[in-house]
């Protein structure tokens, strides 16, 4: 018996020493979002399982984007894992800057990743980043104000209904705005919203020859509809409102409806932060009957820069952080409402998660988004609220600045569209697309 024990102890020691020999310290660049911060808190679980330790570099989203872009394009090697989005992944994958993730373990079950997410994080069918959490956009509305207005929100509303409901819910005397939407300049802020909205109005950024399409009736309809509705029922200064400003307004009961990221659902239904937590309903993002809704698709995903010396350890971390068992770990410690949403099919098959009020609408929104076929008329680009080409971020930031100036009344919608058309065509010509 004692020999058996001694053998067991020796084996355990050997395994332990082998693990410690291969133990690495990996550096991860990430964003300061609630789910990411939560993950940092559970790093000890990863270390206990693998022996690897983790150094976190947490930065604001735009700073992070600049920082990791500089590092990966110069092969700086400062990070072993980068948190990137659906915009960067296919572009960087095509450039050969990322390690393909097509050899993840069977236990990981890569087939369980939601198809829309896997598609948006791949290039030529190869997965280059594993989704940590995914999101679409949807309508969040005040059930009490909707009832007071004598209206009932359909599961799949039209823009016309949204405009009527916004007007009916607006109560300027009590500082209640019928609708709150992003208007802030920036391709990831107001630019993302208006691009997704334009899809439902039949507009697109480019035709098949990469000509800008801002001179079309569809874009004029989109912008005029947005501005008219927001002028009538939106909050004062909406041209400078982004996600955080609208979240703040909604949580304080000053918005009848808010169309934004599905991830916001957990914020507005959290009674610790939201004064309207018990009276929030959800619906799909609106359409105009043309076959495309105005919801977007986004994922924050973990990718490994090509050239890292710690590829194996980095893959182990990605498998841990985006696994089913990580979701179960968070659910056990903090409840199902706090697990990272939108990445795995199996999550939405879990009965406990199905009981979360916004789970079904989040999944329906994600499933209804198709980045490979986002516009009514055919377009040459992949992406819903963006076009996955390197030039897009710069162009869209300038375009959204023109649009924000129109929302603020500094120029007309026609002037903003004319400027957007000219600057986009100039940039595309300079980049060699036209």
């Amino acid at each position, binding site marked *: 018996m004692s020999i058996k024990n001694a053998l067991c102890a020796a084996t355990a020691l050997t395994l332990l020493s082998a693990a410690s020999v291969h133990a690495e310290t990996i550096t991860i660049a990430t964003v300061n*979002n*609630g789910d990411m911060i939560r993950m940092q808190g559970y790093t000890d679980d990863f270390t206990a399982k693998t022996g690897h330790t983790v150094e976190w570099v947490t930065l604001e989203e735009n700073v992070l984007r600049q920082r990791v872009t500089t590092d990966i394009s110069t*092969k*700086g090697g400062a*990070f072993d894992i980068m948190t990137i989005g659906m915009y960067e992944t296919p572009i960087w994958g095509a450039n050969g800057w990322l390690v393909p993730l097509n050899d993840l373990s069977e236990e990981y079950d890569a087939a369980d990743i939601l198809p829309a997410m896997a598609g948006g994080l791949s290039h030529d069918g190869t997965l280059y980043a594993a989704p940590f959490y995914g999101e679409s956009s949807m309508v969040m509305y005040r059930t009490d104000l909707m009832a007071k207005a004598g209206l009932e929100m359909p599961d799949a509303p039209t823009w016309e209904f949204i405009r009527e409901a916004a007007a009916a819910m607006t109560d300027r005397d009590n500082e209640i705005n019928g609708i709150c939407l992003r208007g802030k300049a920036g391709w990831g802020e107001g630019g993302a919203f208006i691009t997704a909205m334009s899809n439902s109005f039949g507009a697109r950024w480019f035709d098949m020859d990469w000509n800008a399409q801002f001179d079309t009736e569809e874009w004029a309809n989109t912008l005029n509809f947005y501005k008219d509705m927001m002028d009538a029922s939106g909050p004062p200064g909406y041209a400078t409102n982004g*996600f955080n400003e609208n979240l703040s307004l909604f949580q304080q009961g000053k918005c009848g409806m808010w169309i934004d990221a599905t991830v916001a659902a957990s914020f507005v239904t959290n009674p610790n932060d939201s004064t309207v937590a018990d009276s929030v309903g959800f619906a799909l993002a609106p359409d105009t009957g043309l076959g495309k809704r105005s919801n977007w698709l986004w994922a924050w995903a973990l990718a490994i820069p090509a050239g890292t010396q710690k590829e194996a350890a980095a893959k182990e971390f990605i498998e841990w952080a985006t696994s089913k068992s990580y979701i179960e770990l968070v659910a056990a410690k903090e409840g199902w409402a706090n697990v990272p949403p939108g990445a795995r099919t199996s999550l939405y098959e879990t009965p406990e998660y199905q009981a979360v009020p916004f789970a079904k609408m989040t999944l329906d929104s994600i499933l209804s988004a198709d980045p490979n076929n986002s516009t009514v008329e055919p377009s040459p680009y992949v992406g819903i609220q963006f076009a996955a080409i390197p030039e897009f971020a710069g162009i869209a930031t300038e375009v959204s600045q023109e649009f924000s100036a129109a929302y603020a009344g500094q120029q007309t919608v026609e002037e903003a569209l004319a400027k957007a058309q000219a600057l986009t065509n100039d940039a595309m010509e300079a980049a060699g697309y036209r």
Partner: protein
Amino acid sequence: MARAVTTNRKMINTAVAWLIGLLIFFPILWTILTSFKTEAQAIADPPIFLFFDWTLENYSVVQERSDYMRFLWNSIFLAGGSTILGLIIAVPAAWSMAFVPSKRTKDILLWMLSTKMLPAVGVLYPIYLLFIQLGLLDSRIGLTIVLMLINLPIIVWMLYTYFKEIPGEILEAARMDGAGLKEELLYILTPMAIPGIASTMLLNFILAWNEAFWTLNLTAVNAAPLTAFIASYSSPEGLFFAKLSAASTMAIAPILILGWFSQKQLVRGLTFGAVK
């Protein structure tokens, strides 16, 4: 009567000065107050000024999530190191420009200042590649050199202005008494320019402490100072203003205290030569 008018005028001037001072200080005060609120109180509309349940929870969360002391030490190292290194180079440079000027001295001074007008992002990639090649990425030494270089024109200019105020005859007398260059710089010039050097050091220390472009772009884990610490609490998707305010308060506290105790030197340094 004339005396009464003067007193009234003084009171008005004092009141206006306090008003302007409070106006400038208000954002810092608001940040400090917000750091003691809950996230819900931080975004309350109308804003809550003083009457709320004060909490230290944000500081506790920040302390738990981040290694504040590591960021603080890096800030001290970078600001202190770049200041000392800058002075070692700038004192001889300013001495030669002040006491042994050439035909091109003015042009050189203006050229040095013009380098401050170059957008930093324009040289990000060359510097980044250079750092990769030299193995200086995310190192305190590399960042100290960069911070020293970007502040060097200001140090040279300030010291030059100070040295110009010192009569050259004193240095000549020292030379006639047999002082060499080293003795002249160390035992004659430096003691006479101590107030100027002190204010230059302070200003440079503050500039290096607050620098947020290179310190974010050339660091990851090892050399990241308090600017990176603050950046880790900013988020466009989530309301974490109270925690961000707590992080900001912790980051500015050391420099605020330093500035408070050395305000006389700072004011003297910044206004030196303005009034004669």
